[in-house]
């Protein structure tokens, strides 16, 4: 994309803002700012990342190293979109384990077939 170069043409650009009161100008500022961030917030609401999933596993009682390995393997298998925490939690419930023990079982290469579906 070509970079823009232009002189300071503020005086002509500001003309439409002149009629706004100070309060209206601030309101304009914030309404534009909210428009800028709205798609970013929506993307965050509907997406996840390995770091988010690791942070979920940390909160479920895993060490940083366990969380990193487990999330890495889930990511490789295309399972992160279901949520590492949910997969571990449901596996634990099915087997009557704590979430951490369920995760450790996965780290020992057990139960992966149950996650496939």
């Amino acid at each position: 994309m070509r970079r823009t170069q232009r002189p300071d043409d503020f005086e002509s650009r500001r003309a439409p803002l002149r009629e706004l009161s100070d309060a209206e100008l601030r309101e304009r500022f914030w309404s534009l700012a909210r428009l800028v961030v709205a798609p970013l917030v929506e993307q965050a609401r509907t997406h996840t990342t390995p770091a988010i999933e690791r942070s979920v596993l940390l909160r479920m009682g895993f060490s940083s190293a366990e969380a990193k390995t487990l999330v890495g393997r889930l990511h490789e298998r295309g399972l992160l979109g279901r949520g590492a925490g949910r997969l571990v939690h449901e596996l634990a419930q099915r087997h009557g384990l704590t979430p951490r023990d369920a995760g450790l079982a996965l780290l020992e290469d057990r139960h992966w077939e149950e996650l496939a579906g």
Partner: protein
Amino acid sequence: MKLRPDERLDLSELLRDLEHYRPRRRGWTWRRPLPDARIGPFRYAQVSEPLARSVPLPSAHAFGDIDPQCDVTITTEIASGRFEDDVRRMRMAAWHGADHIMVIRTTGQSHFDGLIEGTPEGVGGIPITRKQLRATRKALDAIEDEVGRPINFHSYVSGLAGPEMAVLFAEEGVNGAHQDPQYNTLYRGINVHRSFVDAAEAKRVMANAGLLQIDGAHNANATAKEAWKVTPELFVQHAVNTAFSMAVGMPAEQIALSTVPPTAPPAPKLRLDLPYAVALREVFAGCRFRAQQNTRYIESDTREATVTHVLDTLISRLTSADVQSTITPDEGRNVPWHYNNVAGVETARQTLMGLDGLDELLAMRRDGPLGELVRELIERGVLFLQEVLDQGGYHAAVESGQFVDSGYFPERRGDGIARDPEAGVGAGTVVPREPGYGAPVCSHFGANVYAESEGKACSAYGGCTLCDPTKIRYVDELDPDDNVERRLEAPLTERARGLLRPEVEKAGDGVVCVTLFVPDKPDVARAAGLELARRMGLRDPEVIHARVLHPAEGSVFEVKGVLDVALRADELVLPEQEARLPHAEIEAFVRPRNLHVVAATAGEDEHSVGLQEILDIKHGGIERYGFRCHYLGTSIPLERLLDAAEEYDARVVLVSTIVTHRDVHREQMRALHELATRRGLRDRLLLISGGTQVSDDLARGCGMDAGFGRGTTGQDVASFIVRRLREAPDA
């Protein structure tokens, strides 16, 4: 762990049983204001609750050692690379008024995709790990008990591990953090999608744990070639982070804008920086303000840096600041040294105390250039936001290099930082959440099946670590060589043997700094300065500051080097320091005895202020105890002094000598002793001299009974007199 003011921090105790240490609270704590306070002789309008222990400002001795504390939080940034050295510096800074300790991360941690464990040594900062955070928090808990004020601990939630870092901070009692996804994108080359998606989760965790968030807009000041021209964009960077934070659930009062007055003299600083500061506070009313000091233009001159920082702090007082951050005056030339952290903190608190109640005295004029410039800046910010949207939104604007362009928007020079939204570190790692996506934990942001259920998302398995900290997995060390225990072997052994080395940054570094003026041309003078430092025994001398005073007459240099000397503390000869006697005990001895004292400045010396303070009742002088004081005046010949002593049958002669030119003060002391001896008065008289250049050793060497230097009080002098007269045969 409990600290004693007369003992150094016990690092072995600090590291003991960290596995079970729990922080005592979560979230940020503000100072508690004292409205309309009276402290010592003064009324204050902007102070907070006092400290239990502190080192007052230097001039406080003239006002009864008061130590008023300003109403704003004061930050110091500490990171030598070794947290075990930093905790000692934190303690010193806390005694000087810092209550927000910010720890810089080691180079490269933001690109580490995960958490680091253990205590490896860092470069330009600390690897932030659970053990390091926990040990530091434990130290700060003990330090806050010692000084009597909560201390906020702070680091960075950025890079590729933001959400995990936020969880770690919440779990370990870190109270504030930098979090701004724009920082990752613009300065760290991290993929923009990854940055913002991570940021939402991190911010939600921080919001729920009560952490104060500081944004990253100030980095544009430090990066832009002409920092004052980036101000319109700064409104936008602050707005993007603030609006995003609020949208993911962070309340405005937890959002602090990091703002730096962008210029330094000889630029007309206030005319440029004040309108910007005012405009920002108007647009972002309701948020907090973290006022940082300027680093962009300082280099090696600590005096220059200090003046700029005073002006920065003036702008904070003229507008507002919730947190006054400080920059060490040596930041332009090296990783900050212990005493420069304290210097930076003192610059801020000294300035803030001096400006107490400024609002009651001054109001800003909005009818002149200030009002026009405030309006103009906000309009430029609005135009910038409009252009972001016109380009197709934030990602497109970043791709086109709209940010950190050196033109004063809408001027564009085409040199901004451009980032491909689909590239960068961590590109391609953002995954869409499927319809059944779930995260059974607290403080999670976004679509989540567990968010729709009743109660806490984590209740099905007994609680997440934020609800049940016993579930936290503590990892001690991973590297058998690069860890704190290994690093401490040498310094702790030396400490146990009572060895002392000078230090600026790390235990035992031996670094000292000498100041030399050399009267020659700059290049000759520099070479001479280095050679002189070598001859002083300094290894690896390096000029860290040079300033030409005149191209031919000379230059001044600060030269650092290593003084490889370890002293045994128990072999040092310490001057005997007798404790002051209590007021009542002095008075009980003096009042019934009708003791006369004659006093004067001797010879040709017109300085009398110091002596008056020792004598006058209104200055806390010795008259208060009942001494009959006869002040003869200035430039009094010694014969007249002794005549008066005879006339009043005085037991004490106080003689003040300030002028030291050609050693006249020594001559006067010797002459007084000899004259008193010749006249047969010496046995009955206590001869005491005082002055800024006088020491007890020097005075005794010249025949006096005692000498008192700078900082002496009437109580010191009276204590000496009473002790000596008690031993006298006629006591």
